[in-house]
């Protein structure tokens, strides 16, 4: 049984159909890439899966359980965590407190190990993403790259089974990009299942085995990076029609 099953998901905003009849599965332990040009509906799809938007039709199943109608925080506590395309730190709180929030959530707290306080766990998470130096720095003083890592730590602290990353590479310099690629690979080895939305195809293709391509809200291709990059429709969408 796949970990996540998305079936015929549709979302309309007025006359615009942002996501149209999209279905795909994610198996346990794999990394799936979700690509497509601007406005293809990738982020909308994420919002539908995580409960931030309610779909007009279609269902989302996680571990065989229908989660379509659940609230965002309920879905997080089922085990799906997400990061945002534009970082959303709690800017008044120091870095460590940003993560304590996740550790206080029912799932984050339930999975606290024996004799481990939320603060201790938050510190471990900061060390995992390499931010422990900044732990008392208010989030509003952190640089963009650090905020991206903080965002990742916040998601990981909820102990997810499935991690949805929305453009994790945007705005990172080459060194940070390299670091993030390595972290994602390490998480993959640890057994995390991930769906990654990304524009930087070069970075993404290094990570994923399977890619789903969206265009104007519709799924136009699915397959290994090689298959997808040779797909006529995909080339047309990305490069334009040949003369």
């Amino acid at each position, binding site marked *: 049984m796949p970990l996540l099953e998305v079936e015929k998901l549709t979302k309309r905003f007025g006359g615009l159909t942002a996501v149209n009849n999209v279905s795909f599965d994610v198996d346990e332990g794999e990394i799936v890439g979700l690509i497509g040009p601007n406005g293809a509906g990738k982020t909308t799809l994420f919002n539908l899966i995580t409960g931030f938007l309610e779909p007009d039709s279609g269902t989302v199943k996680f571990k065989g359980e229908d989660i379509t109608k659940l609230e965002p925080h309920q879905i997080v506590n089922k085990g799906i965590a997400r990061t945002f395309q534009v970082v959303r730190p709690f*800017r008044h709180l120091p870095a460590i407190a940003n993560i304590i929030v996740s550790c206080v959530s029912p799932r984050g707290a339930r999975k606290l190990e024996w004799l481990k306080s939320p603060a201790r766990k938050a510190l471990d998470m900061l060390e995992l993403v390499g931010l422990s130096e900044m732990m008392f720095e208010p989030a509003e003083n952190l640089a963009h790259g650090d905020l991206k890592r903080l965002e990742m730590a916040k998601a990981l602290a909820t102990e997810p089974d499935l991690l949805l990353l929305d453009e994790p590479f945007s705005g990172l310099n080459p060194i940070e990009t390299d670091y993030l690629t390595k972290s994602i690979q390490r998480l993959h080895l640890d057994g995390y299942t991930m769906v990654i939305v990304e524009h930087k195809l070069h970075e993404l293709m290094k990570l994923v085995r399977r890619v789903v391509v969206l265009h104007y809200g519709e799924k136009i291709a699915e397959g290994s990076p090689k298959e997808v990059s040779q797909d006529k429709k995909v080339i047309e969408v990305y490069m334009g029609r040949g003369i």
Partner: protein
Amino acid sequence: MVTRYLRRFYTSFATYILDIPPRLLALLLFLLALSVPLLLAGNVKGGDYYLRIFILANVNALFAASWDILVGRAGQISLGHALFFGIGAYSSAIFATSFGLPPWITLALSVPFGVLVAFLVGFPSMRVRGPYLALVSLAFPLILIRLSWLESPINIKAVMGGDFGVQGIPKLISNGYTPLQVRIFEYYFSLLLLCVGSIVLYKIARSKTGIVFVSILDDELASKASGINTTKYKLLAFAISAFFASLAGGFYAHFMTGADLSTLLFGGPSKGLIVPGSFTVVIMTIFGGIGTIYGPIVGAYILSLLPLLLYKIIDVLSSLANLGLSIADIWNWTFLIYIVSVVGFVVAWQKGIAAYVVEKLDELTETEEIRKDRRKGKKGKKGKKRI
């Protein structure tokens, strides 16, 4: 044995209180507050009246601190906070008159009613946020005022007393004491309520729950994405806030020996600010420092005492310069200068006067620590904990 414990107590006292300038300042102010009746009662002409101002300052401070945890920490803007104060005052008064319960029990009963109303008000308020919530919250006290005038089909006016409110409820202690003794007792009791209330609020604000509150203030959606049931935490913030606001209201009713509509509108009329009480707390909190818990307390004290001080100064000046101002004119000048200076302070120190002072004091220790570290050859502390 005893000396060992005493020594241990002193060392912890010295490290946790005396070594931290803001806490030392708080301790000094607390000792000053303890000695207020000794300085005023009997020694100063009209000391009884001044003591009354101090008691109102205590009540307002607790009220403002309770507003601060809801708005400054959890970010749920409430402009109708006098509702909880009024509910506390009215329930205390009604239990005392209609049911004839003794004052201590009515004071304790006022709290669950405030919390109950917080849940009633909280549920519809969960649907709106920001300025819309502010508007919605503004309406609730007005609803209660209308209800208190209602005569049929249910005669609520008979219970709530309409315009006059519920009068003639007993003071907390009455038998066999002189009025001055009662007043001194009331002062110490209000100080106790303020201290316990503000310490509890401060501890909550710095706890895990307090961190979650601030996350809701900063970004509610991101808080949900961290797996937080924001509705639950917002209701909790309403309940905590209403707990202390209604406690302040219950005490106020016994202090004034009655609860009337002013508790809903004015939330305890401090002589200084003739604006509806839901807004007095806003002004006091922003003046002192929003989101700090200690800020509103400082704000309430300064804003309650400043007019008296200004009045005295202008009185002395006018008699020195032979201006011959009438009493009404002295008051007019007092409030003119008062309002202008409050505006000036708020513009100059937007973070609030108490937050500004604490920040300066913190900088003092910070540099001291860095200096010590440098002497030992360590790297200075990189950041500073803000919460």
